[in-house]
C-alpha cells in the first residue's frame, strides 16, 4: 500500500536519520522497530527505538541493503509500515514495490514516481510535459557528430556527462568548440572503463550557478504545496556541506515562480509524500530543473525551522492517508536557518575520512541551536558508513542572527577522538564572501581553502598557542622523565591541574 492506516514503523536505516524518524514517530505515539548491523548494537537508534532487531554484518550489502530481511523483520515484529530514511534503499523503486506487495505501507512516494525520477531521461521527459524548464542539452544515445552539432547549438561552455554517472562522477566541462572532439573521446573512454557504459549526453554549462532546491509536500487527497527553498551551493565534490533556508538569492517573485514550477514537476509524476526539486539557478535568475529527490533530504531541518512544520511527522501523516498539516505554499519564511554538516573528515588533509571512537563530545546548546545526531561520547565511527556524525542547525530572526549563533555553536562544539570538519565551518563562517551571500556551487573548491584564512591569527593568539604548546611539551617531558619531586612554589600555576585530576579520577 502506498497509503493507509498503520500502527508500528520499521525504520530501514541507521544513524541520525533513524533517530530523527524514531523521534517523529514517538511524537505521534507510534512504536518503532530499529534494525542494526554488527557494529551498530550500541547506536542510539537501537537504544531509542521500542524494538531492535539484528540484521547482519557491518557492510551495507549484508544488512541495511538487505530488502528481504527488512521485510521479514517487519513481518516478525508486526510492523506494518517501513520508513526508508535517506540513502540505502530510500530511492530503490524495486524495494518500495516489494514493501507494498508484502502488504506494508511504504512511507514515501510510489515506486513509479521513484523509478521515473531516478532515471535522468525519464525524469526530463516527465517534467517537460508540465513545462518545467530544463538545462538545455541532448538526450542519451546520440553519435559523436550529432553531439558536436548539438553542442554548437547549445553554445559553449558545455558539460559532457556519462549516462551511467552520478554524484559528480563522469562529468567533463568543455570551454571551447575546438576542444570538444578530444574531450568527447576521453569522456566516452572514461565512462566505459568506470561504469561499463560509454554513453554520454551534453548539457549547457551554467556560469556562477547556485544549487537551490524546493521542498515539496503532497498528500493522497490531491494537495501539493511547496515549503520554500533551500540554498545548497556550499558543496565540495558535489557533497553539500552547508545549507540555508531561505536563500539570499531568492526574492518573493522568484520564490513564487520557482515554487509553482516545483509543484508542476512533482505533479508530473503524481507525487505523494515529501520530496525535493533540485534546481540550478544562474546569475540572471534563470532556473532549471536538475532532478527530484524522492525522499526526505539530509537538510530538511532548515525548512522545519523556518516553517514550524515537522517534515518527518508529515511524511507519516501522509502515508497514513491523512491530509497533511500545512495547506499553503510557504512564501514568507519565519526567520532564517543554517545547517552545517559535521563530518568525520579532516579539512587539513584533503577532507580525508577519519574513523575511531568519539572520546569526548560536548554539544553546543542554548537558544536557536538544534543538533540532529545519532552519536554520543563513546560512539565508534566505522569505515562502513558515510562520514556524517551530526547536523548542527541554528535559527535566528535574521540571517545574521542565525550565522552568529552558528559561529557560537561551532565554537562550543567539542568532538575528540577523531578528525572532523568543524574548523572548516568556522573558517567558512568567517569568510566575507559567505557572510555577504556571494557564492556559487564552485565557491568551496575554487575560492575557499583551509590554508588561506581571510583573517590572519592575531599576535596574541599566536603567543597563546606557543605557550600552550610549550607547556604541553614541558609537562609531557616531565611525566616521561618521572621527575616527581615538585619545586617549592610549583603549586602556583599548576594547582588546578592537580585539583582537576583528583576530581576526575
Amino acid at each position, binding site marked *: 500500500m502506498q497509503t493507509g492506516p498503520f500502527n508500528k514503523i520499521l525504520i530501514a536505516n541507521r544513524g541520525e536519520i533513524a533517530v530523527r524518524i524514531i523521534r517523529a514517530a514517538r511524537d505521534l505515539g507510534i512504536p518503532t522497530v530499529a534494525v542494526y548491523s554488527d557494529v551498530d548494537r550500541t547506536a542510539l537508534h537501537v537504544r531509542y527505538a521500542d524494538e531492535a532487531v539484528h540484521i547482519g554484518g557491518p557492510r551495507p550489502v549484508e544488512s541495511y541493503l538487505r530488502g528481504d530481511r527488512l521485510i521479514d523483520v517487519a513481518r516478525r515484529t508486526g510492523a506494518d509500515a517501513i520508513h526508508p530514511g535517506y540513502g540505502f534503499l530510500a530511492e530503490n523503486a524495486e524495494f518500495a514495490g516489494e514493501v507494498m506487495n508484502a502488504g506494508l505501507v511504504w512511507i514515501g512516494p510510489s515506486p513509479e514516481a521513484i523509478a521515473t525520477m531516478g532515471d535522468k531521461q525519464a525524469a526530463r521527459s516527465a517534467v517537460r510535459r508540465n513545462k518545467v524548464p530544463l538545462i538545455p542539452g541532448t538526450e542519451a544515445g546520440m553519435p559523436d557528430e550529432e553531439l558536436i552539432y548539438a553542442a554548437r547549438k547549445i553554445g559553449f561552455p558545455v558539460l559532457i556527462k556519462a549516462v551511467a554517472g552520478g554524484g559528480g562522477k563522469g562529468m567533463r566541462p568543455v570551454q571551447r568548440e575546438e576542444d570538444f572532439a578530444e574531450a568527447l573521446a576521453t569522456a566516452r573512454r572514461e565512462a566505459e572503463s568506470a561504469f561499463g557504459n560509454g554513453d554520454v549526453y551534453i548539457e549547457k554549462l551554467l556560469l556562477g550557478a547556485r544549487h537551490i532546491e524546493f521542498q515539496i509536500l503532497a498528500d493522497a487527497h490531491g494537495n501539493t504545496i511547496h515549503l520554500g527553498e533551500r540554498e545548497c551551493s556550499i558543496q565540495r565534490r558535489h557533497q553539500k556541506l552547508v545549507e540555508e533556508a531561505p536563500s539570499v538569492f531568492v526574492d518573493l517573485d522568484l520564490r513564487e515562480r520557482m515554487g509553482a514550477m516545483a509543484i508542476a514537476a512533482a505533479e508530473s509524476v503524481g507525487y505523494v509524500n515529501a520530496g525535493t526539486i533540485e534546481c540550478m539557478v544562474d546569475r540572471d535568475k534563470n532556473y532549471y530543473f536538475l532532478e527530484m529527490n524522492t525522499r526526505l533530504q539530509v537538510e530538511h531541518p532548515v525548512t522545519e525551522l523556518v516553517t514550524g512544520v515537522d517534515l518527518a511527522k508529515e511524511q507519516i501523516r501522509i502515508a497514513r492517508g491523512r491530509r497533511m498539516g500545512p495547506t499553503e505554499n510557504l512564501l514568507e519564511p519565519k526567520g532564517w536557518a543554517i545547517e552545517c554538516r559535521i563530518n568525520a573528515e579532516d579539512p587539513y588533509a584533503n577532507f580525508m575520512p577519519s574513523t575511531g571512537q568519539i572520546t569526548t563530545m560536548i554539544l553546543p546548546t542554548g537558544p536557536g541551536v538544534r543538533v540532529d545526531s545519532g552519536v554520543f561520547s563513546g560512539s565508534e565511527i566505522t*569505515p562502513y558508513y558515510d562520514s556524517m556524525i551530526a547536523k548542527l542547525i541554528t535559527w535566528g530572526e535574521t540571517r545574521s542572527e542565525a550565522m552568529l549563533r552558528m559561529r557560537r555553536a561551532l565554537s562550543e562544539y567539542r568532538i575528540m577522538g577523531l578528525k572532523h570538519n568543524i574548523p572548516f565551518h568556522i573558517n567558512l563562517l568567517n569568510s566575507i564572501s559567505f557572510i555577504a551571500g556571494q557564492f556559487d556551487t564552485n565557491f568551496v573548491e575554487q575560492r575557499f581553502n583551509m590554508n588561506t584564512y581571510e583573517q590572519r591569527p592575531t599576535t596574541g593568539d599566536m603567543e597563546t598557542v*606557543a605557550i600552550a*604548546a*610549550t607547556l604541553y611539551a614541558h609537562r609531557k617531558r616531565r611525566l616521561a622523565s618521572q621527575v616527581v619531586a615538585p619545586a617549592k612554589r610549583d603549586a602556583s600555576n599548576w594547582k588546578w591541574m592537580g585539583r582537576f585530576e583528583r576530581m576526575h579520577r
Partner: protein
Amino acid sequence: MKYVTIINNERYEIEIDNDGSVLVNGELRDVDFLNLGGSLFSLITENKSFEAVIDDDEGRIAVMMRGRLFEAQVLDERAILLIQRRGAQPSGSGEVQAPMPGLVVAVTATVGQKVQQGDTVVILESMKMQNELKSPVDGVVASIHVEAGQAVDKNDLLVEIKAAASETST
C-alpha cells in the same frame, strides 16, 4: 627550562621555571594551564580564557584553537644544540599508511619513481568515498606493499618513500 617554540615560522623563546612561572621572550606571563581530560586543555593567560585541543605526532605538536590548526615545534636546549651542530635534518617520515580500513582502488606510483610532497600514490576506498593518499615528502618510491583490489587495515604500511634530505630552519 628553556624552549624555542616555532609556529608558522614565528619563533618564541619560552622559559618555564620550576615554580611554574612562564616567561615569553623574557617577559613574565600569568598562566593557568589545565587539562580538561583527553587532549582538551583550558588556558587562562592575562585573564584571557582559551580552550585548545592539543595532540602530538612525532615531535610536532598540533594545537587546535578557535577553529584554527597551528603546528608547533617545541625544541628544548638539547634539540636546539643538535640542530645548530647538524645544520640540517631529514624532513620527516616517508611512510604512507592506511589512515582507515578500506579497499585499495589503485596504486598510482611505481618503485623508483621520483615523487613530490602531495603527489597521490594510492587511492583507497572507504566510507563510500575514494580517498587519495599522498606522499608526505619529496623523494623516491622505495617500496610498495599493496596492490589494487586488496583490503587493508588501519595503519597498514602501503608505500615507502625515501625522503630527499632538505634544509631545516631553526
